[in-house]
């Protein structure tokens, strides 16, 4: 075989590989909305996914309902005890809340404006299983834009990374690509909460001498402009201070239960414009 034909044989795959690699690196996290193709696929498949999910959810509810009936009496007794305890706690919190209100008024603190929340339903999950993303049934038509925070009743869920007309793609805080500027609520120690997949996060860049203990609540710091300050992220599950190194390893269990994620809320507060983009005159 002549040398030129051998070269030609290898040239095409190499060119395709290089092209694909450059497309991956060039396109990663750069688009504001989903592409036309992505939007088309999402708009076609999402309604079917929603129907299938509703059917599965319905069957699951009936199944769970049956099992819940078993042992209902003992559960009822336990819940009554729990209710008493919660009532006492509620009273304590009410007192603390009133004291807080009075102190705020005294110090002339500006009362924070309540952020509007948009309820949304989870339609689908990441098809590959390697990443941690969900698809929700609210999109551009509902004023959802990229980088809006998504929360559940328990805490922060993630942020919007792609939007089509009626749906949005959300990157969960569990994903390895997710990073949230966070604070340890008790000691105000700062770090970056990065996803590790499978119901675990890692609070990175916390210095070894900083005060972090097991059970500490971790909240969003509000830095970075994507997530509002004070959203509950999770609690510290494990702290490891090695014999060497600058930082300690802080494992965090997310507050939101991602295994039972059905309804979420989008924080409808437009994220601040990136100064770099404004400077360069780019609209995206």
């Amino acid at each position, binding site marked *: 075989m002549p040398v030129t034909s051998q070269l030609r044989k290898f040239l095409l795959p190499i060119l395709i590989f290089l092209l*694909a690699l450059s*497309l991956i690196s060039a*396109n990663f996290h750069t688009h504001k909305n989903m592409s036309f193709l992505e939007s088309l696929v999402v708009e076609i*498949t999402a309604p079917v996914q929603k129907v299938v999910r509703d059917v*599965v959810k319905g069957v699951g509810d009936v199944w769970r309902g049956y099992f819940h009936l078993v042992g209902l009496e003992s559960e009822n007794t336990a819940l009554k005890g729990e209710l008493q305890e919660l009532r006492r706690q509620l009273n304590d919190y009410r007192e603390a809340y009133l004291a807080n209100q009075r102190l705020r008024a005294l110090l002339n603190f500006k009362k924070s404006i309540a952020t509007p929340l948009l309820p949304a339903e989870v339609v689908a*999950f990441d*098809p590959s299983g*390697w990443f941690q993303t969900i698809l929700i049934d609210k999109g551009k038509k509902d004023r959802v834009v990229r980088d809006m925070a998504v929360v559940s009743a328990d805490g922060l869920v993630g942020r919007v990374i792609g939007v089509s007309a009626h749906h949005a793609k959300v990157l969960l805080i569990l994903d390895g690509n997710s990073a949230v500027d966070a604070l340890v609520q008790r000691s105000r120690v700062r770090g970056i909460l990065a996803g590790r997949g499978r119901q675990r996060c890692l609070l990175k860049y916390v210095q070894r001498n900083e005060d972090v203990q097991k059970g500490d609540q971790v909240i969003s710091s509000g830095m970075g402009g994507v997530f509002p300050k004070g959203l509950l992220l999770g609690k510290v599950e494990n702290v490891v201070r090695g014999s060497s190194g600058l930082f300690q390893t802080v494992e965090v269990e997310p507050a939101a239960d991602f295994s039972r994620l059905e309804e979420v809320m989008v924080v409808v507060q437009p994220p601040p414009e990136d100064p770099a983009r404004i400077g360069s005159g780019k609209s995206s």
Partner: protein
Amino acid sequence: MTIRNVFVYLVLILGAYLFQTVLYPLFILPELRIDLFLILVIHSSFSQGKSRTLVLALFLGLLMDVGLPLKGFFHPLIYLGVALLASPLWHNLNLHSRHYQAIFIGICAMLEGGAIWIILRLQGAELAEVPNMLQILVWRSLTSSLVGPFLLSALERLDQWLSTLMVLQESKQG
């Protein structure tokens, strides 16, 4: 390929997509999830022509990337690679044997996971540092090896049934 075959393939693709996006996260552990698109690409490499398989691989790859935090051409690259690898192997080696098919599917699943691991590693993602990613990768490859040949067999039977149906129809018309 008749319109009926195209329709059946579209239904299969939609079914696989729904299975992976809706049912997998609810019922199946990450370790036991088989990439059904990968099985479809391999089946197409074995039964359809190279050009058709490449088109299918591209389409399935783009569809897979829709739900991911990556933008375009990541999974198409993987599926195109698998399609390009599977076609010559089918013609030159004894991939008709279920044992070899199991090994081949396992290797493909491992390559796919490995490619994702490399991309995550390049991005500095935390997931890549977790040892259980390797565990998931091994389990997935094993599950794919065990279940994949049965899925391929089912798809072959479907193809046979479609061809029989076509022959019957043609004979009736004749």
